[in-house]
């Protein structure tokens, strides 16, 4: 093995790969060989660093120099100046990494200062295609500890005590779910991972799978041990080719090392897992629809009860958790429930990953302790609104959530507080809107999405959301009448209470919440017979 004096970490997340970070890697490798530095300097392709806005990102250790928006032609300069002569190339540093000519290392930059990385702990630190690097940072230690020192009941108790809640949006206590599935009768049980991340604008699950796939594999094996299952499935979107590939590599490596397979850690516990691809249906993020899809059917939700814990995949007891939830589990087992509870709030311990997008300076992926306020997220971590515009609202929870206005910016973020101000945590998409954005159009956008994605099984969602969309289009195209607003509201309330699954029950939320906070914008459309935001083209699909 070789020790290197310097590591060049290149972001291999989807965002940076889209801006050609793979080409940067090739160039680095080629030039390092040419300059005979390849025995001293190691190039590592990692997962997402989170600050997608500044991509492609390169971090050079040991200094922790944070280079952003690096171009192919800059590679030579970084090698010549930094790697050869030890002079940091200041002009390429991320703008916040150099203040009054003082260079800061990556973890001193404001964007990262308020963050607390648990689920994203290894993202941007390790090479996701090398299991040894995961193991180096305590990987699979939790599984080893559980299999050799803990009973399945103790594992479940620890997860329960930690207060971990489902990060997919529901916020259901994870430990309870594990307990139910463990108690369910059945000779065969399954562990599922929901990686069908559909909320447009949320991409934390993808980043975790791309940057740290073993954390999910380890957690699923832990879950298998806890509930008595030997088979897992990861249901992942086919739109995430990099994540699928890295996860498959990780599964293969875990098998080779005997961390999946028979008699893991010399115990009598066997566990293996398989990837199943989604095919572009948002509703498959709903757990019963996801199960139907794995079984090879149209991904339509089923009535609950029975819950998957009792009758899930192929009618067998099934545990299903989201990617980010799993990414917390191994560390909880390793460090204990109390360690986890120290972070976050009493009822929502730990951290949450958010995807910051829209009208915000630092677009990207962040992980913050629960209880951080929206203001801190938007202005400190997110760096505020670009072009000196005024903040108008932030949408959380995607098409199921609602918008939050400036009056509520000091609300600490946790599952319950977001619900109490009329939005929800959701999977963690956070889209910022500025004064130029028309809220009626935003509501129409989300509804257009749900109409498209409604599976068609139950009429309130299939027909109701379509009617709502028609009314909204009528309003945005300048043909609305004052009565339309009441119609919209009534219809929304009906769909909420009568739909079969979460998709329909929450689909009206963006409309209800914009109606509540921005009714004047709706009224302006209706009264002036046009969109009051002149730059917006009249939308007629």
């Amino acid at each position: 093995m070789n020790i290197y004096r310097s590591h060049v970490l290149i972001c291999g997340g989807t965002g940076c790969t889209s801006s050609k970070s793979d080409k940067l890697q090739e160039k680095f490798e080629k030039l390092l060989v040419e300059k005979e530095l390849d025995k001293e300097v190691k190039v590592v392709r990692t997962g997402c660093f989170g600050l997608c806005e500044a991509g492609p990102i390169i971090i050079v250790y040991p200094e922790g120099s944070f280079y952003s928006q690096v171009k192919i032609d800059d590679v030579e300069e970084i090698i010549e100046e930094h790697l050869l002569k030890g002079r940091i190339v200041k002009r390429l540093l991320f703008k916040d990494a150099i203040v009054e000519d003082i260079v800061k290392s990556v973890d001193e930059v404001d964007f990262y200062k308020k963050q607390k990385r648990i689920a994203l702990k290894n993202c941007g630190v390790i090479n996701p295609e090398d299991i040894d690097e995961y193991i180096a940072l305590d990987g699979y230690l939790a599984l080893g500890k559980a299999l050799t020192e803990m009973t399945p009941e103790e594992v479940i108790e620890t997860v329960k005590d930690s207060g971990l809640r489902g990060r997919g949006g529901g916020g259901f206590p994870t430990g309870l779910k594990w307990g139910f599935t463990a108690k369910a009768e059945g000779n065969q049980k399954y562990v599922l991972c929901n990686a069908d991340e559909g909320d447009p604008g949320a991409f934390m699950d993808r980043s975790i799978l791309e940057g740290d796939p073993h954390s999910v594999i380890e957690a699923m094996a832990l879950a298998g041990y806890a509930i008595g299952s030997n088979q897992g499935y990861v249901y992942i979107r086919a739109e995430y080719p990099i994540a699928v590939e890295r996860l498959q590599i990780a599964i293969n490596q875990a098998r080779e090392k005997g961390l999946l397979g028979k008699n893991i850690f010399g115990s009598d516990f066997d566990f293996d897992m398989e990837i199943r691809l989604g095919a572009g249906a948002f509703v498959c993020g709903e757990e019963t629809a996801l199960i139907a899809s794995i079984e090879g059917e149209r991904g339509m939700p089923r009535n609950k009860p029975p819950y998957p814990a009792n009758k899930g995949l192929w009618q067998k007891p099934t545990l299903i958790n989201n990617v980010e939830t799993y990414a917390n589990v191994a560390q909880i087992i390793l460090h204990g429930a109390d360690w986890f509870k120290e972070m976050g709030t009493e009822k929502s311990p730990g951290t949450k990953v958010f995807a910051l997008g829209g009208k915000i300076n630092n677009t990207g992926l962040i992980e913050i302790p629960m209880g951080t306020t929206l203001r801190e997220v938007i202005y400190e971590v997110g760096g505020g609104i670009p072009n000196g515009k005024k903040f108008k609202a932030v949408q959380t929870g995607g098409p199921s959530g609602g918008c939050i206005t400036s009056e509520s910016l000091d609300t600490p973020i946790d599952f319950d507080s977001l619900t109490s101000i009329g939005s929800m945590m959701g999977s963690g998409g956070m889209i910022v809107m500025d004064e130029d954005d028309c809220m009626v159009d935003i509501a129409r956008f989300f509804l257009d999405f749900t109409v498209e994605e409604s599976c068609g099984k139950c009429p309130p969602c299939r027909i109701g959301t379509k009617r709502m969309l028609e009314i909204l289009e009528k309003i945005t195209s300048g043909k609305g009448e004052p009565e339309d607003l009441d119609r919209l509201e009534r219809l929304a309330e009906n769909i909420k209470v009568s739909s079969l699954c979460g998709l329909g029950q929450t689909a009206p939320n963006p409309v209800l919440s914009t109606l509540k906070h921005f009714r004047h914008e709706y009224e302006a459309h209706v009264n002036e017979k046009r969109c009051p935001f002149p730059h917006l083209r009249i939308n007629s699909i």
Partner: protein
Amino acid sequence: MGFKFDWEENKEKIETLKEVIEENRSKKGSLMPVLHRAQKIFGYLPIEVQSIISEELNVPLAEIYGVATFYSQFSLIPKGKYQIGVCLGTACYVKGSQSLVDKVKKELNLEVDGTTADGKFSLQATRCIGACGLAPVMTVNEDVYGKLKSDEIPKILKKYMD
């Protein structure tokens, strides 16, 4: 739009498909993986391919058609040589990706989910592809165009015309 499935031309592909079905036959819930592979082999899922899968897997054609039409990733018509995707995720939408879709539609006289008659271009309004930092984003096959304005589109499309 008429696209004809040529049995003779697709002979080898059909053999490959049958091998894939053989590999997956014993798997529980094999339909989705088989459809994914079939779409990869043929580029789309014409009714002829669905019938083969139906016979081989002993699943009613109606059921297969139901699944194939339910998921947006499966296409019943061939995709273009150049597949254009405009991201309509929220982050891109807020930054104006709708105007990109409209521009492509107009330039190529093409509807969303359609393919041009010469088989050259197809257009999809994709869900978030996760390049939110580059919003709004358009992709043409593997090429990614970020922070795009609609008046830059004709020039980009031109690159793929000949």
